């Protein structure tokens, strides 16, 4: 019997028992769906985080509060070696870093939580937001695109101009549109929406913002701590894992320092001229800032070191997902094997008939083996299709992070289904093949 005939018989066998096949396939479908989706989540999360980190640029370094301890090999241990201490970084440190040779730009970053208000009296709307004091370089360095209006200028920064650029959620919230921010409701407002509606809004943030009306706060005034500020721009939504500018209210650093009364920065982003000078800039910036500090209570970290730390985290995530996937595959494989063993038992008489008609042990084995294999491959393809649909739906509706379906995950799913079919198809096939035909024919 040719292999093709074996496949044909297996196909006929499956077709003849299609209801059972459908149930049996369910396990494989779920298994393959998990392979695809979990691989996509793992890659998607990694890609998003890497993009965020990578967005800093290879020529950028970060000055952060606290001292990052070194590992035994002398490397900075960003995962477990980061000490938690209050920030002592100041705007003066940033200015000192600016003087370092081969430094292209220095972007200080001051952050605090504040309440922003638009309108007055009954029309007033208040929202909690993240106040960010920074320089005119912010939008370039943070890749924060403007949806409308403009960013503040260097002159406005130096003159402590009372201007702000709003994150998309804050802007929409103040206009009374649905937003993803955890807005504080002012008294007299309608009761909060049910959780599922809020969740849906959060998941479909991109859509909601795409549907926003023409109304805008650009050119109008808002109040922060009873001080009036002019809205000059609105940032595009960039809901993402980890950091997002959607809930930010960005103002010039000098204005922020004066209005908040804060002195310490959350971070300073230093940009070198080129990647060739990065190591030199790294040590020079460290030395320059040290002139203002008694102790080393800050750290200078290169993008490369952050990516390394991130890689470690995502590798752990991937290992965990691989574990879940393998478990799902084993469970689906065992399910298939159970169904096939049952099928062999139920079809004992059929096996006897086939043998009486001249089927050899090998031919019977091949038929049942191919049946399991076909079942798994079909299940795998269906799981792959559903997984692909899920990813497409996710990417069209959810903007927190994108799912990425790499070719290797597709191959992995197909090879896994083949592997599961092969591994778990052998036992039922052998069971069928070893049957004594005369006994099988008498089976009731």
């Amino acid at each position, binding site marked *: *019997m040719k292999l093709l*005939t074996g496949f044909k*018989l297996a196909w*006929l066998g499956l077709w*003849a*028992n299609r209801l059972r096949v459908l149930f049996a396939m369910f396990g494989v479908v779920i298994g393959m769906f998990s392979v695809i989706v979990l691989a996509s989540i793992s890659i998607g999360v990694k890609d998003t985080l890497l993009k965020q980190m990578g967005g800093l640029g290879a020529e950028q370094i970060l000055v952060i509060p606290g001292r990052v301890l070194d590992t035994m090999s002398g490397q900075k241990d960003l995962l477990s070696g980061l000490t938690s201490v209050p920030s002592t970084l100041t705007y003066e440190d940033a200015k000192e870093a600016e003087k370092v040779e081969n430094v292209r730009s220095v972007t200080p970053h001051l952050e605090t939580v504040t309440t922003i208000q638009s309108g007055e009296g009954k029309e007033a709307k208040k929202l909690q937001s993240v106040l960010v004091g920074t320089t005119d370089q912010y939008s370039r360095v943070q890749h924060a695109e403007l949806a409308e209006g403009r960013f503040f200028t260097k002159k406005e920064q130096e003159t402590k101009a009372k201007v702000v650029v709003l994150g998309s959620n804050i802007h929409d919230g103040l206009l009374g549109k649905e937003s993803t921010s955890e807005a504080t409701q002012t008294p007299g407002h309608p009761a909060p929406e049910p959780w599922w509606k809020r969740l849906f809004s959060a998941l479909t943030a991109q859509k909601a913002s795409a549907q926003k009306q023409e109304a805008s706060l650009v050119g109008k005034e808002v109040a922060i701590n009873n001080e009036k500020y002019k809205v000059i721009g609105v940032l595009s939504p960039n809901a993402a894992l980890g950091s997002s500018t959607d809930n930010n209210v960005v103002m010039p650093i000098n204005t922020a320092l004066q209005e908040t009364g804060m002195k310490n920065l959350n971070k300073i982003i230093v940009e070198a001229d080129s990647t060739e000078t990065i190591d030199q800039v790294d040590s020079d910036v460290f030395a320059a800032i040290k002139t203002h500090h008694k102790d080393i209570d800050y750290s200078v970290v290169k993008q490369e070191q952050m990516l390394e730390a991130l890689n470690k985290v995502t590798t752990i995530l991937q290992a965990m997902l691989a574990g879940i996937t393998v478990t799902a595959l084993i469970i689906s494989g065992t399910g298939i094997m159970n169904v096939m063993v049952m099928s062999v038992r139920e079809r004992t*008489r*059929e096996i*006897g*008939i*086939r*043998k*009486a*008609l*001249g*089927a*050899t*042990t*090998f*031919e019977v084995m091949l038929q049942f083996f191919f049946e399991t294999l076909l079942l798994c491959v079909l299940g795998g393809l269906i799981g792959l299709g559903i997984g692909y649909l899920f990813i497409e739906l996710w990417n069209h509706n959810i903007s927190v992070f994108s799912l990425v379906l790499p070719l290797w995950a597709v191959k992995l799913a197909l090879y896994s289904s083949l592997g599961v079919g092969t591994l778990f198809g052998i036992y039922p096939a052998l069971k069928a093949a070893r049957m*004594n*035909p*005369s006994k099988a*024919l008498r089976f009731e």
Partner: protein
Amino acid sequence: MIELRNVQKLYRSGGEKLPILRGVNLHVEKGEYVAIMGKSGSGKSTLLNLLGTLDVLDSGEYELAGQAVHRMGKGKRAALRNEKIGFVFQQFQLIPNMSVYQNVLLPLTYGQKRWSGKRAKVLHLLKEVGLFHKRNQKPSRLSGGEKQRVAIARALVNEPDLILADEPTGSLDEETTENVLQLMEQVHADGATVIMITHDLEVAKRAERILLLKNGMLKEMANEAAYGI
């Protein structure tokens, strides 16, 4: 065609081995029509299973068409079954979820022989047994007689030298029995060797020779009294 020499077959029950065939000898010429009779539990079906190479003998020798079956492995026995033997069972033994056409086609799927015009061959046989119009139906939609005619068509599709029929009329009414027996006689007339197991003397009388299996031994039946009727 068939030569059995001192064949023994043991029946295993609870660790004990009981002889069911004790030194059976049988010689059947090519083209003969033989009926084997015997009471329930006399070993008729066991003997048929041995003749059909579905089971192996515990001792003795078996030659079929000049080939020593007792020395063959499973693979060769399966090939021999496919090429030389056609089975007709009392319970028809059709695969329920396959159509009439697919059931008859099945023997041509196995074995080494390359068949040309398989479809035409199957359809021709179905016409011969009067079931061409029911070729796409499942066995569950057929009457007992129709099922047996499908089984006969399946037994003939690979042009076997030997037809082994195990109580082929056991589940049929009188009229259908007559139809099936006529078909068997036709098969025999076309040159096939037919061995039929039955406990019905009237059915057995249609054969050229009647053998009686009693106490694990096979003997020519001289008269009806020998069967104990």
